[in-house]
């Protein structure tokens, strides 16, 4: 997030797009409720009529994968009516002329045809967002998990910059990070192109710095992303995969392909706390310890580094992951001798400029938000206050492109996937929590009652859901949360694995798969 969670409650207008906030980030939703109580306008755009939609001032259901068109339409109206922040645009940004040219054709009428959102609603959203003193954008995987994921995010950045809603309190472009430490995993260099702190592996200065600190010779080649690793296993160019606390058999698109890839590995090492479907395929399974059994830090969605503290001894013969890695490294001949997670954090602070001022003693209390470059720095509540990282903010002129797969007579339903309030990601933890699993213990397919009656199915019936990549059986739930022609499934349940169906088509830049859109057929199960 460019801004902080607490700032949301003082926004005058909040635009939530592609985030089912009450289910997936309940304690962020709390701030949205408070803002609403204080009089903020709430705009929700989501193909499903999610809980937040019920309390929105304006709720629109855009067709799956049409976000760029919708946002361009909003920008079109803002520019036409003069609701932009001209001072901000002139002082802090560049590229506005290109943007203006591109969005000229995105009239509310044309956008309405693409998105299914009425022209009146597009004007209303533009007015609420464009005329607010402080407006915030909140988004999640509904924006990013598309072949146009990068375009979608850039479009939201256009909207925020055009209206001067970035670099000040209670504004910003705010992605909600889905996993407790996905922010930290990225910050720590768990990415193929960067060292910790987003220092590019291709920059010779960075390479030299880490070679000297780590006493090793390092590669200057960008590595493989998850999907490249899987295809590498399939074609034999990758021989081994070491998986720490991840479950690609459920989290990745097109499960049949994932399974084939993992089975082709000469060596699959899985380090986890439970025997996941991915662990089932491993050659060796190393039992790690959970968050309750070790010290460390997590970095949350607002860049706040916070302490994790050991409550109990490791369960059974499990070991904290850092000890396992250190032990293997030493056996391999690359010496590591950390005596505690704190010693590792001290090294992180030394090599990571944005974490430079972070020490365990300073994290007591509320933690610290990066960038926190030195010991005296108080941390950073919101980003881009006086300048953007590149200096001026760049507008990107972006044309709408349809999703990779669209419906046809053979696969007439749009399928989208997501989370539900009692479960988390691939269910490894929540399905092992008796209270949570008792709430919802099996997967389901949300379908509009009109479509269901046309198919001759009754609520609760098991149906077959078939895509070009696989088929599953699942029970149905009738609901108008989905419009006719759209169905939804949560992806927490191994017994009815939604990702057996999803499309592995990737965004060309971010390499994120289009998990939020694919075409399926629904059949009565025999």
């Amino acid at each position, binding site marked *: 997030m460019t801004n902080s969670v607490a700032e949301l409650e003082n926004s005058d207008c909040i635009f939530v797009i592609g985030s089912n906030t009450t289910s997936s980030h309940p304690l962020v939703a*709390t701030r949205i409720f408070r803002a609403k109580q204080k009089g903020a306008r709430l705009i929700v755009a989501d193909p499903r009529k999610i809980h937040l939609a019920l309390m929105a001032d304006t709720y629109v259901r855009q067709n799956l994968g049409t976000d760029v068109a919708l946002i361009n339409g909003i920008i079109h109206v803002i520019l036409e009516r003069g609701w932009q922040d001209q001072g901000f645009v002139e002082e802090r940004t560049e590229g506005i002329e290109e943007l203006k040219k591109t969005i000229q054709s995105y009239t509310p009428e044309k956008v309405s045809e693409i998105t299914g959102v009425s022209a009146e609603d597009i004007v209303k959203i533009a007015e609420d967002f464009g005329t607010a003193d402080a407006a915030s954008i909140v988004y999640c995987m509904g924006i990013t998990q598309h072949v146009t994921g990068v375009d979608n995010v850039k479009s939201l950045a256009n909207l925020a910059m055009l209206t001067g809603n970035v670099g000040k309190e209670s504004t910003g472009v705010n992605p*909600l990070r889905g*996993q*407790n*430490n*996905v*922010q930290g995993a990225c910050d*720590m260099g*768990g990415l*193929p*192109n960067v060292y910790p702190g987003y220092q590019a*592996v291709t920059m010779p200065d960075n390479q030299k710095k*880490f070679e000297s600190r*780590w006493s090793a010779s390092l*590669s200057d080649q960008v*590595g493989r992303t*998850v999907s490249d*690793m899987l295809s590498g296993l399939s074609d034999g*160019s*990758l*021989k*081994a995969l*070491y998986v720490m606390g991840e479950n*690609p058999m459920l*989290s990745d698109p097109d499960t049949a392909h994932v399974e084939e890839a993992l089975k082709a590995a*000469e*060596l699959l090492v899985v380090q986890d706390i439970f025997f996941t479907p991915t*662990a089932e395929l491993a*050659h*060796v*399974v190393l039992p*790690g310890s*959970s968050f309750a*059994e070790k010290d*460390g*830090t997590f970095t*949350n969605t607002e860049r*706040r580094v916070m302490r*994790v503290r050991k409550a*109990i001894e490791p*369960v*059974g*013969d499990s070991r904290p992951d*850092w000890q396992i*890695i250190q032990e*293997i490294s030493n*056996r*391999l001949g690359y010496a590591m001798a950390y005596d505690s*997670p704190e010693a*590792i*954090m001290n090294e*992180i602070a030394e090599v990571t400029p944005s974490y430079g001022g972070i020490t365990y003693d300073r994290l007591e209390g509320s933690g610290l938000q990066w960038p926190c470059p030195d010991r005296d720095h108080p941390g950073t509540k919101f980003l881009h206050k006086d300048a953007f990282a590149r200096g001026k903010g760049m507008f990107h002129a972006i044309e709408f492109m349809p999703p990779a797969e669209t419906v046809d007579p053979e696969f007439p339903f749009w399928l989208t996937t997501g989370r539900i*309030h009692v479960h*988390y990601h691939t269910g490894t*933890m*929540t399905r092992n929590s008796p209270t*949570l699993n008792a*709430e919802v213990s099996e997967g389901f397919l949300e379908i509009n009652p009109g479509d269901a009656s046309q198919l001759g199915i009754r609520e609760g019936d098991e149906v077959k859901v078939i895509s070009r990549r696989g088929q599953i059986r699942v029970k149905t739930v009738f609901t108008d949360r989905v419009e006719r022609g759209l169905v939804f499934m949560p992806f927490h349940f191994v017994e009815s694995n939604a990702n057996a169906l999803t499309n592995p088509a990737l965004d060309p830049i971010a390499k*994120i798969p289009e*998990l939020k859109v694919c075409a399926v057929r629904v059949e009565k199960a025999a």
Partner: protein
Amino acid sequence: MDYRTALTTCTYCGCGCNLYLEVLDGQIIDTIPCKTSPVNEGKLCIKGWNVHEFVQSPNRLTRPLLRKEGTFEEVSWDEALEFTASKLRDIKEGYGGDSIGFLTSAKATNEENYLLQKFARAALGTNNVDHCARL
């Protein structure tokens, strides 16, 4: 009777709610939200209130497992670690470090993520490091 609490950070979504795990004689018995947390201010969602439940589940992995002739066998740490290290060494020597990939974890701590990417880059010489940020 030994009762203690540990102030920590929730392991589910990215909100980062602070909570106390209540521990009685080595068993985690409950979760209490932290009132002074800047994120959750004394509140938790249904997942957070029950975050202690999976920790000591009977389904937890408690021993290293090694596949021998197609089936898993419980083995000692020494055997599992030696197997892993020697296989990684063989593959690195046979095909180069870039023939190995690493998935770090959005569930593990910063320190553990740092260490795994350092291991991949420094010990095996590859930037094949990624995780489920996109999923």
